[in-house]
């Protein structure tokens, strides 16, 4: 289908974007990679009056490692994050997730900020951000603020962003010697959204693990922390952790898989990811 008519404006700066988003009676939408937004417009799932194109704003893309943290600009394309040596070295969980996001042509346009702002519950990056205990930089009409990943994902496609906000960057802790990460997902076809997936991080603690963070995707309205399983895993008991998932997760079935299938897959994912977490990593 073709989208309903809308107006288009190209923002020159973050401040300009915020100003433009305030027009059109609040019925304006930021346009980043367009890989989700334009698809939903074409299907007429939404019909905003104005698109504010962020692509011309300088300084919103790029990857920097400073003060023990990796900062990724909102407009950084998936393909650039996938190929980044800095992300491979300092944020390996994100590097593991990147190839699973859509297909090559989608990754050429799609952006890191767009994936986080869109907050598809089956998307990889929101779960990675949650597993890493990352944070989100936001610029809005009342200035700039930082929101923790734990507080950002509010509901189905609902986040801490308000309509006039621009997500400017995400930040995750850079890995240290004792950091362990793990990632696995089940999708019907390479590049499809996952039926169920798991992103995890922890600290090596002797022969065991501490500070375990398990973030599931595709099994709820948002990425979901499995906190009881995290505690069980820190106690060194994989089977207990898998049993604890019954209390942590309450997936509903969707077109891809039934709730029972997703629950089963969640256990399989945990066993695989635990193995990755236990292996020594660089």
């Amino acid at each position, binding site marked *: 289908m073709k989208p309903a*008519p809308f107006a*288009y404006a190209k923002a020159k700066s973050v401040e300009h974007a915020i100003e433009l988003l305030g027009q059109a009676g609040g019925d304006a939408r930021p346009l980043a990679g367009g890989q989700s937004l*334009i698809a939903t417009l*074409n*299907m007429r799932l939404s019909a905003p009056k104005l698109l504010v194109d962020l692509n011309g704003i300088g300084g919103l893309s790029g990857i920097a490692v400073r003060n023990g943290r990796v900062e990724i600009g909102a407009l950084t394309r998936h393909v650039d994050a996938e190929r980044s040596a800095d992300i491979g070295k300092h944020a390996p969980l994100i590097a593991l997730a990147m190839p699973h996001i859509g297909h*090559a042509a989608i990754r050429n346009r799609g952006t890191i900020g767009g994936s986080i702002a869109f907050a598809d519950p089956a998307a990889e990056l929101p779960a990675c951000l949650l597993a890493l205990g990352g944070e989100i930089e936001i610029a809005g009409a009342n200035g700039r603020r930082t929101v923790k990943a734990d507080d950002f994902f509010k509901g189905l496609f609902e986040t801490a962003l308000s309509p006039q906000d621009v997500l400017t960057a995400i930040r995750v802790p850079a890995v240290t010697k004792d950091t362990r990460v793990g990632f696995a997902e089940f999708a019907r076809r390479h*590049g499809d959204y996952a039926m169920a997936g798991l992103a995890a991080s922890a600290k090596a603690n002797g022969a065991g693990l501490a500070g375990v963070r398990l973030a599931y995707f595709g099994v709820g309205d948002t990425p979901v922390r499995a906190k009881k399983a995290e505690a069980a895993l820190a106690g060194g008991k994989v089977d207990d952790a898998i049993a604890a998932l019954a209390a942590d997760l309450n997936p509903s079935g969707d077109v891809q898989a039934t709730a029972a299938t997703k629950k089963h897959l969640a256990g399989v994912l945990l066993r695989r990811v635990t193995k990755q977490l236990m292996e020594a990593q660089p």
Partner: protein
Amino acid sequence: MSDMRCDIELTVNGETVMETVEARTTLVDFLRETLALTGSHVGCEHGVCGACTVRVDGAIVRGCLMLAAQCNGAKVETIEGVSDSGQIADLQSAFERRNALQCGFCTPGMLLTAQELLSNGGVPSRETIREHISGNYCRCTGYQAIVDAIEAVAQARAGGRK
């Protein structure tokens, strides 16, 4: 500041084009309907099938998920231009030889996608080839022949460079 219609200037297959487009016009509709470049196809119109694949500033993109208005100042290449340039002549003849197309609907997108992978150099594994074309649907061939053709060209190009 914001407009329902936008003036754009871009190059398409090396030629400068100046047009006024509706803001909501997608790149692939602009190419097909305004410029009569109908080699890029329109299938799903929501990013799933890859029939609309074109190159913008050297990288393959979904023509249905980019607005023509966003291409102001861009360098756009379609299957017509890439074909005329001769850079995929070997790939095209391998597709023909190995029956890697039947109806041909997916072929322009498939060729541009394959060429992006091949331009990285080396001989990718069949699994890598399948991953790279995973966003391009073919309803006719069953993919096997397409993978064969891409693999054969990768081997020939690697051999030729030695």
